[in-house]
């Protein structure tokens, strides 16, 4: 097993992971932690395979990082996957609007019922004869 870059000082894999971390704004901490752990395991597996095939440790890491590609492309693919689709956003806005409208309608209806009740109860006391149906 190739010793980790943390044991050797900075290496290509360590630089790649740092790049991944730098470009990962917008991802939640848990997602980011999983992404970094998964990427690191992948890179070290790949470097190990290259090392076993005869490459020097430094070259093996460089090859693994080169094959892994741009950190940014992985992060943007993750962002795209995690982004809420516009249709879902629109549906949420519409549902919220309907909910607020419903609550408003119920409030108006309830206040009307209360009003009728109050008028019916108070009017006889006040000497008025009219009852609201």
């Amino acid at each position: 097993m190739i010793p980790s870059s943390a044991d050797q000082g900075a290496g290509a894999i360590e630089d790649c992971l740092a790049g991944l971390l730098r470009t990962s704004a917008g991802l939640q901490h848990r997602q980011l932690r999983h992404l970094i752990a998964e990427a690191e395991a992948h890179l070290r597996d790949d470097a190990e395979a290259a090392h076993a095939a005869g490459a020097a440790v430094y070259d093996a890491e460089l090859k693994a990082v080169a094959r892994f590609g741009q950190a940014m492309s992985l992060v943007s693919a993750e962002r795209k996957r995690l982004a809420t689709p516009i249709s879902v956003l629109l549906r949420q806005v519409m549902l919220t609007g309907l909910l607020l409208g419903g609550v408003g309608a119920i409030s108006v209806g309830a206040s009307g019922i209360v009003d009728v009740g109050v008028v019916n109860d108070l009017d006889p006391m006040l000497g008025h004869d009219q009852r609201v149906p």
Partner: protein
Amino acid sequence: MKVDGVKGHLDLLLLGILNHTPGHGYAVISALREQTDGMLELTEGAVYPALHRLEDAGLLSSEWQPVAGRRRRLYRLTRAGEVSLGAERRDWQALVVAVESVLRLPRARSADAL
């Protein structure tokens, strides 16, 4: 063949590979490369988001396990993943039959048809 060559069939390939045995991302990419004699060389930037998307869709499940001294995220097919694989495999086979039938058309006949 890069990702563009398998566009639309990436899910089928990933589900197909993981149907044999649960595996982590590196193993999936290596298996795809080896089983196709290097024809399918998929990038990590395509495979990992696809694995995560399939997991979001409930077709894969994942768990972190120590394998050979390293913590790895192992993916496996769920029951829904098996069903989806079956459906995607049938679609693929129907597509292959359709394309083959076009390619097998005799030259004169296809010219007549046009």
